[in-house]
C-alpha cells in the first residue's frame, strides 16, 4: 500500500481564536454603525454587513465548543451562519413576530455576548496562549 501524506490539519491556537473573536465582535459593531450611518446602496456597508452575515452567527455558536483547524472552522462557521440567517429570514416571512431591524439587532447582540464570553474564557498566559488549544480550559472545566 502506498503511504499517505498524513498531513492532518492542526487545531487553531487560543491566540488565533481570541483574535478571530475580536474581529467578529468588531465586524458586528462596525456593521451596526454603518447600517445606521450610511445611506442605502453604499458598497462599504454592503460588504461589511455581508461579512457579518456569513461569519458571525456561526462563529459565535462554534465558540461554545472545541477548536478545530482554522479552515475547517471557517467553513463550518459560514455554513452555520447561513443556516441561522435562513432561520431569521423565515421568522420574518412566516410570522408577524418580529421586525427586520429588531431581528438583526437580537441576533447581533446574542452573537456578541457569546463571543465576549469566549474571549474571556480563552487562556491569556503568554506561555500557553500561542500553544494550548482553546479546548484546554474547557476540558479542564
Amino acid at each position: 500500500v502506498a503511504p499517505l501524506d498524513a498531513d492532518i490539519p492542526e487545531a487553531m491556537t487560543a491566540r488565533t481564536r481570541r483574535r478571530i473573536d475580536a474581529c467578529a465582535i468588531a465586524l458586528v459593531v462596525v456593521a451596526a454603525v454603518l447600517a445606521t450611518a450610511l445611506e442605502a446602496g453604499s458598497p462599504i456597508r454592503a460588504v461589511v454587513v455581508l461579512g457579518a452575515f456569513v461569519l458571525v452567527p456561526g462563529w459565535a455558536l462554534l465558540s461554545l465548543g472545541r477548536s478545530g483547524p482554522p479552515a475547517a472552522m471557517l467553513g463550518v462557521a459560514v455554513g452555520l451562519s447561513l443556516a441561522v440567517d435562513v432561520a431569521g429570514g423565515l421568522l420574518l416571512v412566516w410570522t408577524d413576530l418580529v421586525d427586520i431591524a429588531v431581528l438583526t439587532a437580537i441576533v447581533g447582540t446574542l452573537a456578541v455576548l457569546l463571543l465576549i464570553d469566549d474571549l474571556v474564557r480563552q487562556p491569556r498566559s503568554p506561555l500557553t496562549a500561542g500553544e494550548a488549544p482553546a479546548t484546554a480550559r474547557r476540558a479542564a472545566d
Partner: protein
Amino acid sequence: MATATAGTTAEVRDSVLSRPARAAALALPLVGALLAWAISLPGIDLYSLDDYGLTPALPVAWWMGLVVCVAGTVWNACAGSTRWAWAYLLGVVAVLFLTLPVLAEQPHYSWTYKHIGVVRFLGEYQDADPGVDIYNRWPGFFALSALFGNAAGLPNPVRYAALSEFFFTALNLLIISNIVRILTGSRRVAVVAGLLFVLFNWVGQTYFSPQAMTFFLHLVILWIVVSQLGRDAPGPLGRAVLRLASFVVRRPQDRTLPTEGRWMAPWVAIALVFAIHAAIVVSHQLTPYLLLFEVGALTVLGLTRPRLLVLGLLLLAVAYLAPNLDYIREHFQLVSSADPVSNAQRSTSYNFEPKAGKAFNELAGRSLVILMLGGAAISTFVLARRGHGARALALLVLALAPFGLVLGQNYGGEAPLRVVLFCSPWCAALIAWALMGITGRGWRPLLLGGGAVLASAVFVPANFGQEQLHSVPADEVRASEFLHANGRTPAVVMLAATGFPRRYGPRYPEFRGPRGEDYDPSLLQVGSFRHRALSAADVPRVVEIIEKYGPRGYLVFSSTQSTYADVFRLSPPGALDSLEAAIAASPRFDLWYRGSDARIYELLPRPPAPVAAAPEAVDEPATPRPAKRRPSRPAQAPPARREPSAPPPPPVIAPQPVLPPAPPPPPPPLPPPPAPRPQPPPPPPPPPPGGTFDDSG
C-alpha cells in the same frame, strides 16, 4: 513520502533565493496574469457576440491570464507551495467568474431575475405566500436574501447578484479542499482537486439561486459526516467491496479511514448536521434528496455513523415535503419516469437544430463531462492499484451517489446538469489524488498541467459559449423594472420568445393574468408560431393567446428574444420583426415602452359593445392573496409612455387586418376567433424552448 519530497524541493529553492525574493518570484506571474486579465476586459463587447458566444471575443491577454493562473496553481501545488497554489487558484476563480460582473453590472441569465423578483417580493411585503409559486413554498434562500438586503441597504439584489458565482465558488472550494485533505491526507491534493472542480463545473449552477447556497450547505454537511462522524474502518459491505477491489487489481487495500482530525463531540456534529439540513430543506426541493443519496451510500458501506442519521435526514425532508405534496403533484411531477436513460436525456432547445456555434458549445460541455467521468474511472483504478481502498471508496461513493437522481426524476430536463454539479467535486478529487501520486520526475506537472490547461480550454466554450443568449442588456432590465412598477394589473406579460428578464419586480405575482396558470408564457411556445413567416394575419391569434390569461396584457419584444429565436432557428430571419410591425400597427395594441433593446406593447381593451353586457368576471381584480402586512398600493397612475411617437422599427408591414366589431364581452372559455384565417399545419410536439428554464430552481 510526498511531504518529504516537497520539503526537499522547498529547501532547495529556499537555499537559492532569499525569502522576499522567493515571494516576489512567486507573486510576479500572478500579478502579471491578473493585470493582463484586467487590461483585456475593455476590449470585450458583451453585446455583439456570435453564436459561439464569448469564446472568440476573448482577447489573447485574457487567455494568457487564465493559463498563467492555472499553470501557477499546478506548479506551486507540485512544488509544495500550497499557499501560493491557493493564491493562483483564487486567480483562476477571479478570471473565470469576475469577467462578466466587470463587463456588465446586471447579472446574466434571464432566469436569475425571477429569483430577484421573489427576494424583492418578500423584502417588500415580508410575507411568503404559498399560493404564488413554488419559490414561496421553499423560501429559505429568498428570505435570507431579503433579510440581508434590508440590513445592507440593498433591497434589490440586482446590485450584487452578479457576484454570486465568484462568492459561492470560493466558498465551495473552502469546504471541498477540507474534505479532500481529510480523506487524502494531503493539502497539495486538496488544492489541485479544487482547481479541477472549478474547471469541471461548467454547468453554471452557482448563480444567484437557492441551489447555489444549498450546494454549499450540503458540502458542509458532508464535511461533518466524513471528518467528524466517519468510522475508522468500513462496515461489512464496505469490506466486501474492498475485497472485490483487491481481487480485481491484485493488490491489498488499506482499510483505515481518517479519524485524526476530529474535534467535535458526536452529538454536536449531529446537531450541526440537522441545523444545516433544515436550512437546506426549506430552501431547495432537490438538494435534500441528493444529500440523502450521498450520506445514505456512505452509511450503507459503513463509512460513517450513526446509521439513524440518514433516517433523521429523510424524516426532516419528507416532513417539509408532505404539506407541499399536493402542489408538487399538481404543478410538477414527483417521479417523472422510472427510466434512467430517459431521465438522463437533457431536453433543451439544442434539439431544435441550433446554429453551429451552439452545437459546438454543447459538444464542449459533453466533452468535459466525458473527461471528468473517464478520468475519475481511471483514477479509481490507479488508486486501487496503490492500495488506497477505503479512502478512495469514500470519494467514489460520493461521486456515484448523485446518479441516483436519474432513477426517478429528469428535473425538467436538468437532471444531467445537477448530477454533474454534485459529482464533480469527488471526480476532481479522485483525479487529483491519482495524478499527484505519480512519482516519475516531470511526469506529474506535465500530465497535471496539460490536463488542467486542456480542461480550461474546454471549460470556456462550455460555460461562456452561450453568453450571446445569457447576457441581459441593461435596457431590458430597465424595461422589466418599468413594467413591474407601472403596469396595470392584473395583466399577463407575454413574451415573443424566451430571454427577457421577467418576474423582476416585487409585484410579479400580479403579472400572470387572472386566468393564468404560469408566469412564463411566450408566443414561440405555441407551435403554430414557429418555423414560418409571421405577419398581420397572426395578430388576432396573438390577442387570443393573451386573452386566455385575462383581458389585459403586455407583449414584449426584445433583442435577446430575437437572438434566441434566431440561434435556435425557431423563426426565419425577420419573422419576429414582421410580427412586431404588425402589432405596432394594430389598433388593439399601443406602444407602451420603447428602449434601445426592448419594446412593450399594451393590449388595449376591446371597443365597447353596442349592447350593454353583464359585468365581466374576468375584469375583476385578481384575487388578492391574504397579505399579513402588505401595504395597500397607491392607485396606479396611467402608464407613462417613454417615447409615444416613436414608430416601431421594421418597416416590413403586412396588410393591416381589419378587425370586425368586437363580440360581446367574452365569457370564459374563449370566444371564437373573429375571422377565419389559414391555420398552419400542426408542428410535431417539440420539447419546450425554455433552455435551462427550471421553475423549481
